[in-house]
């Protein structure tokens, strides 16, 4: 199956970029991988609690009356779909499609699922509701989403520096 990568979904948090720019190439690759894995986990867990991972976007708007009615009537029973939280999860495939790729500056986060485009940019369903799951243009991820990845990076950089100092 051909996987379509939504390139407009690529993002690189500035805080992480700044930390990564302080280390050499090998260390950057290693640290980027660790940070990307953590960030992916935190993005998905934030979305699953019904909150947008993007700064200045709060909780996701509730489902439309017609979708709520369909859920109540048991149309999505096989997915165990409920009215709350608004977690963008039906089969779960869209959130599972989150991926990362290393770049010269650090890493990119993106989703391979085409559904992301509808939720994030075009608007989903008849009501065209947008639920931001990836930052656009000048937007950034929320600090609460990046706390752990930044912690991992800072710790790795500090350990590396301490190691180098010991060698001197």
């Amino acid at each position, binding site marked *: 199956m051909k996987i379509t990568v939504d390139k407009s979904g690529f993002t690189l948090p500035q805080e992480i970029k700044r930390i990564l720019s302080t280390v050499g190439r090998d260390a950057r690759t290693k640290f980027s991988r660790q940070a990307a894995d953590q960030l992916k986990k935190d993005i998905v867990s934030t979305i699953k*609690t019904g909150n947008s991972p993007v700064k200045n976007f709060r909780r996701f708007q509730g489902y439309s009356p017609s979708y709520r009615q369909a859920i109540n009537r048991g149309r999505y029973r096989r997915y165990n779909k409920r*009215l709350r939280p608004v977690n963008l999860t039906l089969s779960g495939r869209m959130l599972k499609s989150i991926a990362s790729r290393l770049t010269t500056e650090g890493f990119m986060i993106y989703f391979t699922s085409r559904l992301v485009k509808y939720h994030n940019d075009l608007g989903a369903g008849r009501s065209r509701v947008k639920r931001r799951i990836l930052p656009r243009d000048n937007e950034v991820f929320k*600090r*609460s989403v990046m706390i752990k990845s930044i912690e991992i990076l800072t710790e790795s950089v500090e350990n590396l520096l301490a190691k180098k100092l010991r060698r001197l």
Partner: protein
Amino acid sequence: MAKITYKLKLKDLIDVKNINRDTKKVIKDEVGELLLDLILKDTANQRSAVSGQKWKGLSKEYKKIKSKVAPGVANLELTGDMLDALDIKPYRDGIEIGVFGGEDALKAENHNKFTARSLKTSLPKRQFIPKKDETFRKGIKKELVKLAKEIVDEDNS
């Protein structure tokens, strides 16, 4: 229903003497958003943003009822209205966070047990807003202080 809120003073996070008004505004906005997210995160993880302790699970009967519309866990989300109403407002000395009136404030009051009336209700205490003499758990406070310091450092550099 009166509001159920908590006022967090900037001076409890950082020395505000030499900070200009614009920077204070940035700190209030950024810290407020982070605080809101961290409270929602703790609530989703069924723990108190005040004590840091896990909340007691739902009663068998209520779990059965709740499971029809939402996960049967103590995450304070049935219709989602109360958590949607959780908001932040800056004031002169800092930020005010909580539910600012309406029916959702009554729900928040009953969960947080702020008043004698709410103590009489059968709802177990699941606090997410501190009382006047309390504050947020250590981990949250640490992140807020860190962010405030970063903003001031960035402004000075």
